[in-house]
């Protein structure tokens, strides 16, 4: 067991990064200021679909301080007007002749001051010829619909791809014989990550030595470096070799998936710097971030469950329309176009499932990113957790009983699902029981019955989710062919301190603390003596970045593996110093000792010194190691959440009275950081259930273009979360850890939704599309004559 002095696994070590953040000494992209730096701002399209007839920049160019105006035609001359997306689609950097979504980049201004650039964009006259847009994905598939992407000459339709998973024949067969079939249409609207820091970059190309340095708000700096090298190779600029590209992702103010994609602004600023040799800064404003950056979700799901009368689920059938906007720019580095959506069988033992998803283009900003979720797992969990409740309602059973009846039994792990995933470990009944006891489930149901009799509205919502995280095994995951391992490099210095460099990158997760704790645990060096660095491609080992709760499952494992290599060498050093055979040594209390003889021992600090001063003949000096870890499987964290809501019949307002979250993320590195992750995740998961959603009018105008209309929860809306845990270690992860960043975001949305629907279920309500606003509830109450003045 780790000691407080060491601060290894399981200790709530205070975050090493916080002193600089709470003192305002973080170093974010917008803090980067270089001599002679110019500023960029972007002209954006008011239309969702239009031809560009002319761009007149003369007035902008006449404004003192304006250096250049860049249009799609300028970039086209260098073959840079288009760029690849992460899903092998293409996306415009700047348009040559047409725009396909509102707020799309149309031209860029480079000026000596940020404010001059902002003034200049208003002076650029763009002549548009509006075209009819299509914003509804169902209409986009109808014959005669406006074509969003005529550049795809081989595909004269808005249909992008069809994907299916599971066994259709067996599923249909079970459905045809089932006692009970329930079906529901569930829409999960667009939402936006809205991280505190918007996106931006400072691109600086040194024409003397040909080196490009870009400080960038990115969650995956190494992948960006490789992509930039490949993109320049295909352009008329000529390839910038990868060793001449340095991507630095400094302190990042929240990513949540929104900083995985490459946005046109990065490319324009970088191209401008490469062509001029002058550093260029681009920082988007809040509205640009909300209106144009990649969205999340936007899945139209039709789900059916086949069950018997006792509530046992036998099959699941799902058809989904995935609205991708104007490009398939999902941040989804799996081999599947709908990501991990087929994890939709959830925590349940289901004989057969068949899942179909169709991707569709519409005149909306492209996406969708995995907002704090593993590539569509949020959509999957929301759908299955809603459907279990719909089934319980149909059978007039308690939703907790239906879950208990259908859980994959703990003894059946590792468990292979009907869609092919192998769950590593789980104990779902234990988590649900713990949550039910903690919240007093039986009493709450009795209270609900009493209140219903009096006409009061109270609901209890359960969600027992299984997450799928840690991308990932290289057989299933890659970015443009780069397999999704991750890495760590550790150097132990002679005096017993160490530096750890990791291939993943923190956007606030606390890596500088937790990765130091892993090394502390493995080597017995105190956590304060370990520095963790990340985000600079010139120094960190190659990695695929942080998203999809993958840092601990991949780079965390790599860190442990690298530390174990160091420990192996340290053992040889200890044998040398103690004049014993390595086989006679044991690692006890963070020291190597001669078996059974604690007086004959060496600490890691002593061994580190020996590695540089007194290593045996034939052994290389130094104490360092590197590991690239390709996980054998994903990890499957899970949890049981229960939410209690009260509904005001006068206003339809929903109040979350209590919310109990029991999470199981395997072995925990830092309980305080995990709890913080869960608190944030719960808030971000509650929000789409009740507040957040981005919708467009028929002309493609965004209706939630500011925080006046896109409602982010504040502390006023956030209830006092009650958290607890069970611990079911991952059998294949070196630390038994599973990853936790997304669990709460994934689990909270259905828990809140189920609670509100439960409050109204006696009225025959089976589903309400999120966000469930007071107005939607009020309309339901009005239909049933239940409103109260």
């Amino acid at each position, binding site marked *: 067991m780790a000691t407080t002095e060491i601060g290894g696994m399981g200790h709530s070590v205070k975050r090493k990064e916080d002193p600089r953040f709470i003192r305002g000494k973080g170093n974010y992209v917008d803090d980067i200021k270089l001599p002679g730096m110019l500023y960029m701002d972007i002209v954006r399209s008011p239309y969702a679909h239009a031809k560009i007839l002319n761009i007149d920049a003369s007035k902008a160019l006449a404004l003192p301080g304006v250096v250049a105006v860049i249009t799609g035609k300028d970039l086209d001359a260098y073959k840079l007007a288009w760029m690849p997306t992460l899903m092998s689609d293409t996306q415009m950097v700047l348009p040559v002749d047409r725009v396909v979504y509102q707020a799309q980049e149309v031209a860029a201004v480079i000026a000596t001051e940020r404010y001059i650039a902002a003034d200049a964009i208003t002076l650029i006259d763009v002549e548009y010829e509006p075209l009819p847009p299509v914003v509804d994905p169902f209409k986009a598939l109808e014959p005669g619909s406006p074509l969003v992407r005529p550049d795809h000459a081989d595909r004269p339709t808005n249909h992008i791809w069809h994907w299916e998973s599971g066994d259709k024949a067996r599923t249909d067969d079970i459905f045809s014989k089932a006692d009970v079939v329930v079906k529901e249409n569930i829409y999960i609207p667009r939402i936006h990550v809205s991280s505190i820091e918007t996106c931006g970059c400072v691109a600086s190309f040194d024409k003397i030595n040909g080196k490009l340095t870009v400080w960038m708000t990115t969650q995956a700096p190494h992948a960006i470096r490789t992509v930039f090298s490949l993109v320049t190779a295909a352009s008329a600029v000529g390839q910038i070799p990868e060793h001449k590209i340095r991507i630095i992702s400094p302190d990042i103010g929240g990513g949540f998936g929104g900083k995985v994609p490459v946005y046109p602004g990065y490319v324009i600023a970088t191209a401008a710097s490469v062509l001029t040799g002058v550093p260029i800064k681009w920082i988007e404003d809040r509205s640009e971030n909300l209106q144009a950056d990649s969205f999340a979700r936007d899945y139209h799901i039709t789900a059916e469950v086949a069950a018997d009368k006792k509530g046992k689920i036998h099959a699941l059938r799902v058809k989904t329309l995935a609205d991708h906007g104007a490009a398939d720019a999902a941040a989804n580095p799996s081999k599947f176009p709908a990501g991990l959506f087929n994890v939709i069988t959830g925590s349940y033992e289901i004989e057969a499932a068949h899942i179909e998803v169709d991707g569709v283009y519409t005149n909306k900003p492209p996406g969708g990113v995995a907002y704090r979720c593993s590539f569509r797992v949020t959509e999957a969990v929301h759908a299955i957790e809603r459907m279990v409740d719909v089934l319980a309602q149909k059978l007039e059973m308690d939703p907790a009983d239906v879950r208990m009846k259908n859980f994959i039994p703990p003894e059946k792990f590792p468990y292979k699902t009907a869609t092919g995933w192998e769950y590593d470990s789980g104990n779902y009944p234990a988590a649900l029981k713990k949550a039910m006891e903690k919240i007093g489930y039986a009493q709450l149901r009795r209270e609900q019955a009493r209140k219903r009799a009096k006409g009061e509205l109270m609901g209890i919502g359960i969600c027992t989710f299984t997450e799928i995280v840690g991308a990932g095994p290289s057989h299933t995951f890659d970015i443009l062919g780069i397999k999704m391992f991750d890495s760590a490099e550790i150097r132990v210095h002679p005096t017993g301190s160490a530096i750890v460099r990791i291939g993943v990158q923190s956007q606030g997760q606390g890596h500088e603390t937790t990765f130091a704790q892993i090394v502390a645990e493995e080597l017995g060096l105190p956590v304060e003596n370990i520095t963790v660095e990340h985000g600079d491609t010139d120094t960190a080992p190659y990695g695929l970045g942080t998203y999809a709760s993958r840092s601990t499952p991949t780079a965390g494992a790599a860190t442990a593996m690298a530390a174990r290599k160091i420990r192996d060498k340290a053992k040889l050093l200890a044998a040398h110093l103690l004049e014993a055979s390595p086989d006679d040594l044991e690692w006890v209390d963070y020291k190597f000792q001669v078996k059974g003889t604690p007086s004959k021992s060496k600490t890691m600090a002593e061994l580190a010194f020996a590695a540089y001063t007194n290593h045996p003949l034939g052994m290389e000096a130094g104490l360092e190691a590197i590991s690239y870890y390709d996980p054998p499987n994903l990890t499957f964290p899970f949890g049981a959440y229960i939410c209690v809501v009260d509904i005001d019949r006068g206003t339809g307002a929903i109040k979350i009275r209590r919310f109990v979250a029991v999470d199981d993320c395997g072995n925990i590195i830092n309980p305080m950081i995990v709890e913080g992750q869960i608190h944030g995740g719960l808030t971000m998961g509650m929000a789409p259930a009740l507040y957040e959603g981005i919708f467009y009018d028929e002309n493609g105008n965004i209706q939630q*273009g*500011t925080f006046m209309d896109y409602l982010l929860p504040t502390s006023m809306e956030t209830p006092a979360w009650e958290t607890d845990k069970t611990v079911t270690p991952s059998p294949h992860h070196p630390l038994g850890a599973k990853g936790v960043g997304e669990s709460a975001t994934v689990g909270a949305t259905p828990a809140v939704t189920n609670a509100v629907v439960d409050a109204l279920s006696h009225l025959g309500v089976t589903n309400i599309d999120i966000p469930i606003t007071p107005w939607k509830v009020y309309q339901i109450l009005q239909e049933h004559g239940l409103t109260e003045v």
Partner: protein
Amino acid sequence: MHFEGHETINAPIEAVWAFFMDPNRVAECAPGYQSMEVLSPTHFKPKVGVGIGVVKATFTLDVELDELREPEHVLVKAHGVAAGSAVDIHGGADMKASSPTITEMDWKADVNVSGTIASVGARLMESTARKLTARFFECVREKVETPR
């Protein structure tokens, strides 16, 4: 957005017609009017400042009159751009004299607004438009009903 309305103006139909055919006089009543370039009697380009909530924009409009049947019918097509916003208007008016000194006018307009004004000001747009329209006709009445 679709708007329509009926106005009773206490002036002879010829006077009302003459007013609406004179872009400079109409402009005096247009809320937020700044300046105008007259290209022909039926084609002009006014600059109009619009504020919806916190969003302010100056639109350069391209206005054309069509299907003129003096003194009772006119169609208006307008297209305007501002930084980050655009507007397209298709409208028309039919007038008839209910007495030698009273003109009844039915008008309608389909307005498509795109960009920042539409996305940021969506909730306020319709009420703002109604308020501005009311102010416009108040001004028209004042100008036409008072003999020059």
